[in-house]
Each structure stands twice: as structure tokens, then as C-alpha cells.
């Protein structure tokens, strides 16, 4: 395991072919300060470019995922300040991350923290996890995609409940709503997310990337467009070495070894 240096608010563990990013401001429940966001998005951009990394786990550690933004830092700002800083617009490297990204959530994932989890591709929840958008209690609304990603995941009515009451939903309810993939013992959340990341990292990376793109496309395009795009990606993959390897390995009853070519 190599722990990369240079970050103050996050931990980056590189264990190729996977990497784990841990939000690391436990004293403030991993509040998403501008510095933390900058470090996280920088690290994500690096990982996206690193060919040795094929899947990434994002976690806040054993106690809390992230209990939202740094309110102290926001309380007295004006609209123009907020617009200039465009804090919520800075999540692009997360939302647009091209490789499978697994959130391992224990404890609170609130506000921006919840939105960060929703931007991941799979969510593993410890039994202690709580997902919520309490922004309304502060006179604002979610600003990093919460109002858009919740309804796309759970439908209008539950999304409204989450936005309008500000009350968090439990791991079990989130599981029943289909927002989380698995509820696991809190002490195993990160380990299991890493295990899943390793499984996914064995898959042909280009296919994983296309699959991710295609699924995300389903959320913001009409069906015909999504289907057309899917078909193109499907044909494209026949141009890859990994497709040849995958199909021949299948026929030869052996495990494929994929290069991402």
C-alpha cells in the first residue's frame, strides 16, 4: 500500500488496481470545506488519468461519511460570493469520473455529503448510515445535485420528503428505496467496498467505462438517444483487444486478462 503524500484533508491509498480516497477531517465530521473539495477533486483527476487504477472507493471512514458543507464558512456570504466561488460547480471531476466509483458510507451522509455519495456509482452502506438533505433547515436547498439525483433514484415523492422535511433516511430504508446496494456491518463497509472494487477492477476497463457512461446517459437523455448511444458503444467495444481476449477466454474456459486496450 502506498499512501500518497501532499494531501491534508483527505487520505489517498493507492493499491493498484484500486485506490481508496478517505475524507479525513473527523473532528468536523468531514465537513466539505473548499480545501477538502479541492484536494478531493484534484486526487480524482489524478486517479482518472492513472492507467493502473481501475476502480476507486470513496469513504469517510468508520464513523461518518460527510455531514455536509462548512456552514461556518457560508453563513455570512452573499449570493454573488457563492456564485463566484461556485463551490457546487467544482464537483465536475467527481460527477464526470470515468471509472467505477464506490461510496462506502458509515454514519451521516448529509447535505453535500449525501450528494457526494449520490454521485458515486455504487453505494455500500454500513448499518449506521443515514442519508439526508437537511439544507431546508438552514433556509437553502441542496446545491450539488441533490434535488436532481434523488428523484432520479427514488422517484418524486420520496425525494420531496427528503428535501422538504430535511429528515435523514436510515441505511435500511435507503436500501429498500434502491439508493444503496448493500447494507453491511459498519465495521466492514470499507473492506467490502474495496473487495467489490477489486472485483470490478478485474473486468475489462473500457467495457466498465462504457457501461458506466451508458447507465449515466439513461438519466439525462431520451430513450432513443440513450439506445443509440449504447449501440455505438457496443459496436465500439468490438474494436478493442479486451473484447477479443474476453470472448476467446470464455470459449477456452479460462479467465480473461484485460489490458484496457
Amino acid at each position: 500500500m502506498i499512501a500518497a503524500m501532499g494531501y491534508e484533508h483527505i487520505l489517498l491509498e493507492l493499491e493498484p488496481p484500486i485506490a481508496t480516497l478517505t475524507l479525513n477531517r473527523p473532528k468536523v465530521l468531514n465537513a466539505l470545506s473548499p480545501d477538502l473539495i479541492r484536494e478531493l477533486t484534484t486526487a480524482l483527476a489524478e486517479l482518472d488519468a492513472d492507467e493502473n487504477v481501475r476502480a476507486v472507493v470513496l469513504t469517510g471512514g468508520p464513523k461518518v461519511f460527510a455531514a455536509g458543507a462548512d456552514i461556518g464558512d457560508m453563513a455570512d456570504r452573499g449570493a454573488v460570493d457563492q456564485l463566484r466561488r461556485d463551490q457546487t460547480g467544482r464537483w465536475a471531476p467527481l460527477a464526470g469520473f470515468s471509472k467505477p466509483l464506490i461510496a462506502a458510507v458509515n454514519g451521516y451522509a448529509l447535505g453535500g455529503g449525501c450528494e457526494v455519495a449520490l454521485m458515486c456509482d455504487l453505494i455500500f452502506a454500513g448499518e449506521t448510515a443515514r442519508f439526508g438533505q437537511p439544507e431546508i433547515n438552514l433556509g437553502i436547498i441542496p446545491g450539488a445535485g441533490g434535488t436532481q439525483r434523488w428523484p432520479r433514484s427514488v422517484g418524486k415523492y420520496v425525494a420531496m420528503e427528503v428535501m422538504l422535511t430535511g429528515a435523514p433516511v436510515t441505511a435500511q430504508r435507503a436500501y429498500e428505496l434502491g439508493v444503496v446496494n448493500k447494507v453491511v456491518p459498519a465495521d466492514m463497509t470499507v473492506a467490502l467496498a474495496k473487495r467489490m472494487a477489486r472485483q470490478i477492477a478485474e473486468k475489462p476497463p473500457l467495457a466498465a467505462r462504457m457501461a458506466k457512461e451508458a447507465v449515466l446517459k439513461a438519466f439525462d437523455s431520451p430513450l432513443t438517444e440513450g439506445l443509440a448511444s449504447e449501440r455505438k458503444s457496443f459496436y465500439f467495444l468490438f474494436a478493442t483487444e479486451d473484447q477479443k481476449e474476453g470472448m476467446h477466454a470464455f470459449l477456452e474456459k479460462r479467465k480473461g486478462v484485460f489490458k484496457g486496450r
Partner: protein
Amino acid sequence: MKEVATEVEQHIQVHTHDGVALIRFNRPEKMNAIGAITRQQLGDAIKQAERDDAVRVVVLTGSGRAFSSGADVTEMVHGAGMRTPEDVGNVLRNEYMPMLVRLRTMPKPVIAAMNGPAVGIGASFALACDIRIGTPDSYLLEAFVNIGLAPDGGVSWLLPRLAGTGIAYEMFFSGKPLQAADAHRLGVINRIVPAERLEEEVRELANHLASQPRNAMAGAKRAVNQALESTFEQALEFESYLQEAQAASAEFAEGVQAFLSRRSAKQG
């Protein structure tokens, strides 16, 4: 002796010793009826017992003749706090619910020492504990119907699981008590001991549990609670992950070492 709230009436006593927190209803003259002050103090005591790492086992019991006679009905009618139907609902949702959930989910064993009758919300507290030890004169009574109310305090969930729906319905419909002997036969009460032996028996059990590996016990409680909400396969899966975490623990290392060297385990 650590006492909760000295400035007002002390409806709850807490005594923590050797890893065991004894929480005692302390209104013997009112059969340990639960009013606003009781709720406040009991809530604090339960929360504190959960948070305090020195507490490994919690015992809930009554003083005098009753475990608890339930909600203080006089206060409901004449006193402060619970006058409108909405107040009744709010007390259930905002006060009793967190306490009962906490008892059922805190990662440590909770024992009800039923020194006498447990009625209404008092029965809920006994039933929300993990283990119940009773005396021959103790009983459980869902008296709601007798005053025109429906069951509350989680008993609609707890009693069918502990005693079966037939018994639960009979209690809810008839407003008649489930006597200790019947409760014991049904497995609702783990065992019955003579009244004068109750404290000692419970102390012995609590001390034993306090010497057991705490995370292994917490794991058992998490697994049972998870299983009550899941399918068999989901329960098997949850167990397997839990066991994986526990197999990596110092408790397991010590347990195995002790087993192999034929000594008793020392769990920190």
C-alpha cells in the same frame, strides 16, 4: 452512587458498578408510574448508559412492589405535558420512541429485572430489553383497552414476536395480565426466581455478561436486529460479514488462545 437530577424529584436512580449500569424506576409510592420527569430522567439514563464505555451491561428494574405501572394517568389527565390527543402522540414519538429504540439497539446487553408488574408503557420497557428475569408475582399487562386506548410503546411489534399473535391479541383485547408463569412458559420471561433472590440472580447474570467479549455480544445483538428485518439469506450474509470483522478482532484472538491453553479468556 451516581444520581440523575438532584434538584427535582428523583424518579430514576442510576448505579454503575463493575461494568453494570443499574437503572431503577424510583417512585415506589406510585408503583413506578412514568410521568414527564420520569421520561426525562429515564431518557438521560438510557442515553448515558449507551454512551459510557465503562458500562458493558444495563439492567432496568423497579423499586418497591412494581416494575412499572405504566404512564402516570393522573398526570395525563390533570398534569402538565400530556393534555391533548396530539400531546399523547408526541410523547410517544418524541420521548418513548428514542428510548425504546435505544434499548433494543444499543450495542450491549439490556436485562429487565421484573421485580413486579409491568403495565402499559412499563411493559414496553420490559419487553424492549434483551432478556427478562421475573419473580413469581410479576406479570405483563397491556391495559390500554381498559381505558379505551390501543396498544403503544412498540408492543404491537414486540409481543407478537415474543409470544405469538394469539397471545398478543388476547392481551390487547382482554386487558388481562400475562402472569409470570405463563410468560415464562412462552419464553417471554427467561426465568423466574424468588423475589428475595431476584437482585442477586440478576447481578450474577449481569456480572457474567460484563465479563464476556463486548463486541461479540454487540455483534449478536446487531445480527438479531438486522435479521428481524431481513430474509434468511440476507441474515446469513450479514452474519458472514459480521463474523469476518469479529474474526479479525482481539476478542477472537484472546478467546482462541484461552481455549487452546485451557484457561478462561480475559476480555478487555
